[in-house]
């Protein structure tokens, strides 16, 4: 018996025969994996063959909320898209904010499982427990904001939407899924998987409430967690004031801001693309996702120059970096425009910017023949950067089609895969591991490919005093701890950014009060470790090995040429062995039977 936090129902939709089925939420899985990323992944590993082609009808997409979605728990409106990812074939889950998660719960469902392929483009209209398959042929090819508007006009103006843009329709392997108009589940190519199913999106509306198990305990947990965040300088100072791009100057000052496809790690013009500059030049107002006291979201506009009059949401830190420093571009308006294009077409901004940077290096070094590019690709050329993003978004020519597959496939095509700044084919984000050692371990071991939001060691290595960013000792431990913590909070429906102030015990307190489960700090972390190992087992079956737990040769061998981290390389091996040991894995990156038994998932091996 579950007393609160969940609606207790999962909606299963088969696009091939347009059938719909409701299933009860399994209490044992809710207790073992919470919800969201954990529960959704548990379903996926049960139902999807790890060796299936991600774009085949047999792959499934699970859209999952957690028990905190729809409550006043701080920053608790997160939604997770779980599938076998199109970018690299690894277990994929990609998280977004907005308001879709809470609304899905008000429609009566904790999760939606999408199966099969529709013969023609459709979207789903989930309204108060009823599901309609709606023709989407008039929306196919339309940009995300326009599709969002039309879908809400055709269903209900207060509906919330999940939508793929033209990038997902055209199966770009770096395409994402957009929620509430401009919040992105960007990473791992989840947009292409949805596109392969001919599903334009979902509109959802509901009128049900979300109950919690212990009213008084929940109110107290909300009060205490919100007051901790209110007193935290990052959560209620830096982030609301400057957005996540407040990090540009901070990370650059450590000499760890990858620039020009990570040929450098210090960007002299960083101030021009910083959160401070964004506030001065483009910010209209802050936007908060559901129940978020941080409101790091930016509503922005471009006030002068070539892109004058354009407006939208973002950019956040990683996007500012990928289109800015990574491409050597210091024109903030161009960076903001590239971000708008990605949101409208449904592209992942990290992968898109890093792919442009990779193409620029291939071009400048002569590996990409000049005839292959429709215009000159030079680092620092803001217009070329935006045009590249437009080309990969529209896929009108071979150049755009190639770039839309991400940097690894571009670099491999031209015979230099080492120039893709990625791990497991996924582009790494805005922190150079040579100058912040622990984050490299996270990039190398993250189950979905290079990623910062699965074990955000930057919080410990840079933002809080404690760990020296340039030492290796202690990094394996902090990475494992943060990976486990994040897996659990991703399953609760709460935002990673709450951990700037909240500890595992605070998050466990919220989940326990909402669900009535006996979850303390230790159990919360055990659940996270269980999820991490479950994801790992899927990847092993999909063919990933210890050899894939690595970083681009540039990061491992080429010293940073200048700046505060001059001379540094990333010696990954100094952390990797210790990491495997802490995880209870062999040197071959395979979990031991003993550890899996401890975690209660030996049957998944």
């Amino acid at each position, binding site marked *: 018996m579950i007393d609160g936090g969940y609606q207790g129902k999962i909606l299963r939709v088969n696009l091939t025969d347009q059938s719909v089925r409701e299933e009860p939420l399994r209490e044992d899985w809710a207790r073992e994996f919470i919800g969201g990323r954990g529960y959704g992944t548990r379903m996926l590993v049960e139902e999807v063959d790890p060796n299936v082609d991600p774009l085949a009808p047999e792959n499934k997409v699970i859209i999952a909320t957690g028990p905190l979605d*729809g*409550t*006043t728990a701080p920053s608790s409106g997160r939604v997770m898209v779980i599938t076998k990812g199109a970018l690299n074939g690894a277990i994929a889950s990609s998280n977004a904010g907005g*308001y879709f998660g809470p609304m899905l719960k*008000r429609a009566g469902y904790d999760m939606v499982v999408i199966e099969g392929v529709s013969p023609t483009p459709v979207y789903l209209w989930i309204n108060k427990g009823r599901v309609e398959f709606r023709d989407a042929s008039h929306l196919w090819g339309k940009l995300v904001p326009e599709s*969002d*508007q039309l879908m*809400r006009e055709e269903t209900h103006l207060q509906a919330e939407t999940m939508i793929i843009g033209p990038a997902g329709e055209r199966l770009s392997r770096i395409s994402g899924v957009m929620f509430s*108009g401009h919040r992105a589940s960007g990473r791992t190519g989840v947009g292409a998987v949805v596109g392969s199913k001919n599903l334009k999106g979902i509109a959802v509306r509901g*009128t*049900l*409430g*979300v*109950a*919690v198990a212990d*009213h008084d305990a929940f*109110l107290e947990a*909300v*009060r205490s967690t*919100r007051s901790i*965040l*209110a007193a935290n300088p990052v959560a*209620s100072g830096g982030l*609301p004031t400057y957005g996540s791009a407040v990090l540009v100057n901070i990370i650059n000052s450590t000499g760890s801001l990858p620039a020009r496809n990570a040929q450098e790690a210090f960007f002299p013009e960083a101030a021009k693309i910083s959160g401070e500059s964004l506030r001065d030049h483009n910010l*209209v*107002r*802050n*936007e*908060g*996702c*559901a*129940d*978020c*006291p*941080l*409101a790091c*979201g930016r*509503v922005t506009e471009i006030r002068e120059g070539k892109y004058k009059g354009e*407006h939208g*949401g973002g950019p956040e830190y990683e996007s500012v970096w990928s289109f800015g420093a990574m491409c050597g571009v210091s024109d903030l308006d161009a960076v903001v425009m590239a971000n708008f294009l990605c949101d409208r077409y449904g592209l992942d901004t990290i992968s898109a910017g890093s792919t442009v940077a990779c193409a620029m290096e291939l071009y400048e070094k002569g590996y990409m023949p000049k005839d292959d590019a429709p215009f000159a690709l030079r680092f620092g050329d803001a217009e070329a950067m935006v045009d590249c993003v437009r080309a990969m978004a529209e896929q009108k020519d071979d150049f755009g089609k190639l770039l839309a597959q991400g940097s690894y496939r571009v670099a491999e095509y031209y015979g230099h895969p080492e120039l893709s700044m990625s791990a497991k084919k996924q582009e790494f984000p805005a922190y150079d591991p040579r100058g912040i050692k622990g984050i490299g371990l996270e990039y190398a071991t993250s189950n979905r490919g290079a990623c910062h939001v699965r074990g955000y060691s930057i919080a410990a290595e840079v933002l809080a005093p404690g760990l020296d960013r340039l030492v290796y000792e202690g990094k394996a431990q902090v990475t494992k701890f943060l990976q486990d913590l994040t897996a659990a909070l991703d399953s609760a429906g709460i935002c990673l950014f709450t951990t700037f102030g909240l500890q595992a015990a605070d998050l466990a307190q919220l989940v326990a009060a909402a669900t009535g489960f006996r979850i303390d700090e230790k159990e919360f972390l055990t659940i996270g470790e269980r999820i991490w190992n479950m994801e790992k087992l899927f990847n092993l079956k999909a063919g990933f090995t210890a050899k894939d737990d690595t970083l681009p040769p540039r990061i491992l061998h080429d010293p940073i040429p200048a700046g505060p981290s001059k001379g540094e390389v990333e010696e990954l091996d100094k952390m990797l062995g210790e990491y495997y040991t802490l995880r209870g894995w062999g040197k071959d990156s395979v979990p031991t039977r003993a550890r899996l038994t401890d975690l209660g998932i030996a049957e998944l091996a």
Partner: protein
Amino acid sequence: MRVLVLEPAKCTGCRACMDACSFEKTGVFNPLDARINVTTFHEDLTFVPSVCTQCEIPYCAQVCPTGALVKNAETGRVDFLGEKCIGCKQCVVACPWGSIRLNHVGKEIIKCDHCDGDPACVKVCSPKALTYVEVEDMVASKQAGVAGAYRKIAEEMSRGVNP
């Protein structure tokens, strides 16, 4: 007398006020049962909160045939006396703000009562788009804000800059 002050320019559209309100009033999170509302304008991402303004001339009370809505001289609030309500919904029609509403099943009249002096919405509004203040302090703070702007203009004029 304290009033709920709404400042749309500070609202981030997170809607925590609606969730907190419904939880306070019904024990369940459901924005359709919230006495406060936030309207999102998707085209330019603006967010506008609205709630009962506790009018001095409450149309809702004027049209109520059973005296279920009464202006309270002591608190300044318009009280809703549920036991007198016959569900005719004339108050919903009369309210110029749409701030008297029907609950999520469409039966029961709901309106803001300031949580009897301790509004739940204010506690979760971190950008302070909602505040609960003495009415004279509200006016004073607005005056101070306007005066600040005038002072800047005066300074610039004294330096010969024409604003």
